[in-house]
């Protein structure tokens, strides 16, 4: 299947021969193989694993995926190649999330997302 990871600024990753991708869906971790049913879902913060010849890992703070005709489009505003993610960046993301939780206008959903983000970042750091 073809996988495109796009951000508003650019196409981050594209490969047309990927057997499997695991994404952190909003309702649970999700593995997508060839000929999956067409699906649209949100992502919660977490790691996207593209399992091609040399598996690639990306960290996202949330986004949308769209799968159709063996084309998987992953749309994210914030996504990083894990190898390029520095401690500094992780801390910055964590601080932003912490700030967001303290904001009074924050909805339950946003708090949930921010909490997950912090958890995932902690996991990432301990690895």
């Amino acid at each position, binding site marked *: 299947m073809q996988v495109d990871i796009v951000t508003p600024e650019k196409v981050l990753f594209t490969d047309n021969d990927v057997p499997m991708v695991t994404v952190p869906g909003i309702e649970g971790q999700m593995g997508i193989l060839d000929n999956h049913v*067409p699906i649209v879902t949100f992502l919660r913060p977490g790691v996207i694993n593209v399992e091609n010849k040399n598996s690639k890992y990306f960290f996202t703070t949330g986004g949308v995926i769209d799968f159709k005709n063996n084309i998987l489009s992953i749309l994210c505003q914030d996504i990083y190649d894990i190898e390029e993610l520095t401690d500094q960046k992780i801390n910055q993301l964590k601080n932003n999330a912490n700030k967001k939780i303290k904001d009074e206008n924050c909805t339950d959903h946003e708090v949930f997302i921010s909490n997950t983000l912090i958890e995932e970042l902690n996991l990432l750091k301990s690895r």
Partner: protein
Amino acid sequence: MPSLKDLRNRITSVKSTQKITKAMKMVAAAKLRKAQENAEKGRAYSEKMNNIISNLKKSITDISSSPKLLAGNNKNDVHLCVVMTADRGLCGGFNTNIVKKAREFFNQIIDSNKKLKIITVGSKGDDQLKRNFKDYILERITYKNLKNITVNEASELTSKIITMFNNNEFDVCTIFYNKFKSVISQEPQAQQIIPVENLEEGDEDNNDVQYEFEPDESEILEHLLPQNITTQIFKAFLENAASEQGSRMSAMDNATRNAGDLIDKLTINYNRSRQAVITKELIEIISGAESL
């Protein structure tokens, strides 16, 4: 008849103008390449976003229960217009074209007794609009101090617009920007973003695909629509940036050529008058020698 010295001065001044316009053209050309690249890279995202939204829209049967951002609030009385222009001049008809398009639209709205609210982005558009529409302008935004515009600016503007919409401060929102077609042609565009206009159809042939949605359609839409507005606004920013540089490049190219023509003309004038002066001097010497 200007003296020789006047002519010489004019030629040098036109020459230095030509140097400036030529340099500006070079700079614009370099910036254009980058801006065009950015605009093309950004298109993938907005296209995919459009596809998802139009698929979602198709699967929603009851349009009245869908989020207000999609269907509107059934009124059409207060219009919010976001006019996006550049912060710098000397780019041909770039700013004027957007303002002209916007002004036509404003006059229509005022003539039909609807309320008008304006947000200007970019100082040049503001300068041109405040003459006639000063009372309607709510807010002026410029990104003069920023080197390039990122998604953050777009989402800031979006959250402003959405808060206003949720407070029922307007019913319809339209953005004005220049669409980049090529270096020599940019098209001023008026795009309605709230409620969502019928989107350009992506791929017609997949109409009957049954999608699975997680969570359900309306919840996805609720979160995706604000994102879509950000995407549209960001796209407009990118298109505008590319158009501005393209427009400036062709304007400066023209200016350089015109300066060249002017120099040629002035040089001919200069040589003619120089010749005339020499001839006159010769005649004077000859007639002086004859009278001796």
